[in-house]
């Protein structure tokens, strides 16, 4: 990797200051599971890396009424093994359990994953389908406003995610078809059904791994499931291949088909 200034601030305020003073070339690091391999391959040349790992308040899980709040620096393994998460949103714990491998899950964090917005990452599907709210050091951002495209988010320069708050659904499930090599999602479908109160009810379905612009909501599947929450109700429903990406592992046509299959399986798993 190229040389860079390494900072490990103890507070969010210090991190924000360091990020500001580093200018355009400063880079925040949470778990480092994307950044470090990128640096090692010399695909990035930041002037400064600001490691958020020293900020204690950023990690942790809290159940807050009808929501589960997860600190940005909470690792995937913590989410996967959390009784609170399992008790309220089992699908989220299961999603975390299926990310990468054991090493990745013990380092990688929810905040890092969402801020990076890899189009094949798992968490964005949960954030979008569960209609989560992303809290930063500056504001709150609704899931529907957060993901802006491949590796693009609504985060402004100097903005740092502090936590993600997930409303507790009535039913939810995430089913992933992993890339056999990287085990990122080729297609991952998160299905969530909410009761009539609180979030306004209805069904939200988010798809990761397949969209040309990253994670997206499958509105037609949502509509069908809102009327009849069953796998049968969405038979044959899947987004057109023309809106999806293809690569050496899976063509757009195949991804389109898989979205339908994974959505049905998620509905079945949600029960």
């Amino acid at each position: 990797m190229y040389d860079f200034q390494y900072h490990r601030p103890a507070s969010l305020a210090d991190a924000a200051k360091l990020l500001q003073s580093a200018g355009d070339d400063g880079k925040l690091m949470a778990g480092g599971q994307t950044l470090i391999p990128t640096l090692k391959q010399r695909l990035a040349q930041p002037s400064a890396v600001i490691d958020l790992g020293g900020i204690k308040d950023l990690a942790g899980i809290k159940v807050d009424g009808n929501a589960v709040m997860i600190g940005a620096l909470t690792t995937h393994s913590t989410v996967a093994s959390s009784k609170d998460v399992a008790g309220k949103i089992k699908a989220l714990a299961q999603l975390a359990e299926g990310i990468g491998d054991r090493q990745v899950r013990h380092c990688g964090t929810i905040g890092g994953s969402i801020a990076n917005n890899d189009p094949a990452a798992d968490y964005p599907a949960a954030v979008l389908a569960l209609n989560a709210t992303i809290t930063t050091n500056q504001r709150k951002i609704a899931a529907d406003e957060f993901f802006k495209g491949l590796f693009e988010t609504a985060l402004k320069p100097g903005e740092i995610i502090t936590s993600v708050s997930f409303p507790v659904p009535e039913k939810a499930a995430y089913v992933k078809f992993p890339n056999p090599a990287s085990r990122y999602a080729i297609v991952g479908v998160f299905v969530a059904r909410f009761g009539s109160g609180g979030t306004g009810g209805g069904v939200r379905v988010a798809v990761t791994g397949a969209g040309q612009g990253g994670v997206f909501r499958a509105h037609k599947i949502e509509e069908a499931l809102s009327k009849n929450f069953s796998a049968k109700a969405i038979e044959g429903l899947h987004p057109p291949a023309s809106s999806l990406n293809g690569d050496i592992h899976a063509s757009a046509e195949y991804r389109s088909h898989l979205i339908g299959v994974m959505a049905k399986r998620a509905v079945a798993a949600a029960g």
Partner: protein
Amino acid sequence: MAPNDVGSTGIGASVRRREDRRFLTGRGTYTDDINRPNQTYAWILRSPHAHAAIKSIDTTAAKGAPGVVAVFTGAELGKFGMPCGWLVTGKNNTPMVEPKHPALAEGKVRHVGDPVAVVIAETKSQARDAAEKINVDYAPLPAIMDMKAALKGGGTPVHDAAASNLCFDWELGDKAAVGAAFTKAAHVTKLDLVNNRLVPNAMEPRAAIGDFDRATGEHTLYTTSQNPHVIRLLMGAFVLGIPEHKLRVVAPDVGGGFGSKIYHYAEEAIVTWAAKEIGRPVKWTAERSEAFISDAHGRDHITHVELAMDKDGKFLALRCETLANMGAYLSTFAPCIPTYLHGTLLAGNYATPAIHTNVKAVFTNTVPVDAYRGAGRPEATFQIERLIDKAARELKMDPAELRRRNFIKPSQFPYQTPVALVYDTGNYDATLDQVLKLSDAAGYEKRKAESKARGKLRGRGLASYIEACGIAPSNVVGSLGARAGLYEAATVRVNPTGNVTVFTGSHSHGQGHETTFAQVVSDMLGIPMDQVEISHGDTNRVPFGMGTYGSRSLAVGGTAIVKAIDKIVAKGKKIAAHMLEAAEADIEFKNGKFQVAGTDKSKAFGEIALAAYVPHKYPLDTVEPGLDETAFYDPKNFTFPAGAYVCEVEVDPETGVVEVQSFATADDFGKIVNPMIVEGQVHGGLVQGIGQALLETCVYDKDGQLQSGSYMDYTMPRADDVPSFKVAHSVTACTHNPLGVKGCGEAGAIGAPPTVINAIIDALSEFGVTHIDMPATPNRVWKAIQDAKAGRH
């Protein structure tokens, strides 16, 4: 064998691998663990283009960068050409086109990863930083990627010497007899297939350290090699012009090779040459992503194959047309893989009377291709076994019965095939019977119904295989174009107190020789195994040996040890006869004792050893002191391991995902020294074979960029991709080596691919799918089902 009782460590015992204590506790010494005083670090600048002319290279800024000691390009190192070790002669006595393979590119780059310059600096980071300051002005050329298009010519060829990118056009067998047989055939089965290109992915990336001692004039190369003497000969005599007595090559612990560490690579020559040039040691260690674009790849054949049968399914003739990708340059043994290791295997286990094969080797703008676990034999086996399976389906015959009907029978050995080989022994019905039983053929229909109830399609696949291991003899391979001998050497040094150090020309990089060879020595000399040490991998210590590849180590290297031990025992008898005042002919060697037959007079092995080195009461006038013998062994023939495999798969018709549910093997490796190690070799080979069938493939785009250039996209098999294997053996002893052993390292990788694909085709047969290319990824399987349903196959 096994004349001596050494308890549980002799021939046939599953002794735990002695070397694993150091490997598993991180105490191995690999090339990158070695550091020489005042060492520098090399970084190789590689081509980002598949095909481009180099208009200029400006190294000024790099030379001035911090820590840089030297920068070299083709201007200094282009004069050194990497040699090819096998000359294939094609049709009409036309020798292969053998273009120069410069150590660093000269005027042109021919694949992504082609070395262009080397930067040597105080640290690896500094070398890499400086390499980015080298300004290479490339004029990109269209990449030659597709073999069929390449042979049509047009555009700038990979090498000027091969205008249509043809390296050679080779044939074997009686074309006229095959043609005549096809005209008489009652049924002909045809198949087009691809044998997918693989990246070897040894756990340890390649590394090399060059060191030069100005006081003695001796060069030392530490390198990740399967055959250090071969590297010494090739690099010393044919590349750098260093006399062998001034060149030491050390291949210390090596973390896997699978063939990819047989070859002499440019980096070895670069560090050896540069170490003298700059007067300091130079270390180079590949990054993993560098390995993907610089280790020789494997396989990459496109084949059309046809089988002619009579009305009863008896094979009349086989013909095979293959295009074999050589990549951009000829790697050390590349030309012999699709020819003498592939064409000669096309008889398989069958008494097919007439066979003809034509192989065209093609240059493309890709990484060079050479032997990879199996080397030519997996390609041949895949063709035969897929073709037979298709034939059985067309003839509505049981695939086991069709094979059985055509097997070479035990009474036919030695069996001369129509493609040059003479099989010494085997019993193909025995392994077939064994595997059918082991895989519970009887219970299959019930399991299929159970799978169906869960919405899964179950398929069962069978394949037989034969392989030719321990390539030999030297005079024959020499007549076929080999530029090396294929013997092996061993020195057995009995130390004065009776323990033994064995110096073997074989090289262990995962095979467990330190255990297996010690078992042989212990057993033959009747001494405990912990009294035996196996030394390998250093040309200054071991006699000139050819190394380890092609499942040859025990059959060839082990036999050299046996021959040396025979000499030790013969000399021991002379010494014992003198000491016991008996006739030499009356001395028997048994259980570690030299005994006068029919008496209780004896001398222990250790007493004889001590007498040989402290020759006080010793026949000095007729016998030299010392007990240290060397033997070279050149085999009379290949060995021919064979077997039959069965696997069952479940296909998810909704997603195309294939799961291997069970895998059973019945192998005939001849006699077995360490069953546990053999089983481990079978497991490893199977995983690589299943990897080729389902997961692994090297994908280039049309511009020659490697799309599967890291583990993000190149799917290595993992533990959860394979079932627990059921492994069985039957034995027909090799007839021409004293241990009766054959070789087991490659079998799994040879037999598994057709077994898996046959099972998938069986599962998909209800849709009418008749073929699927490897790797059978979920996308491919799903598409095959969709196409079949739509009538598009």
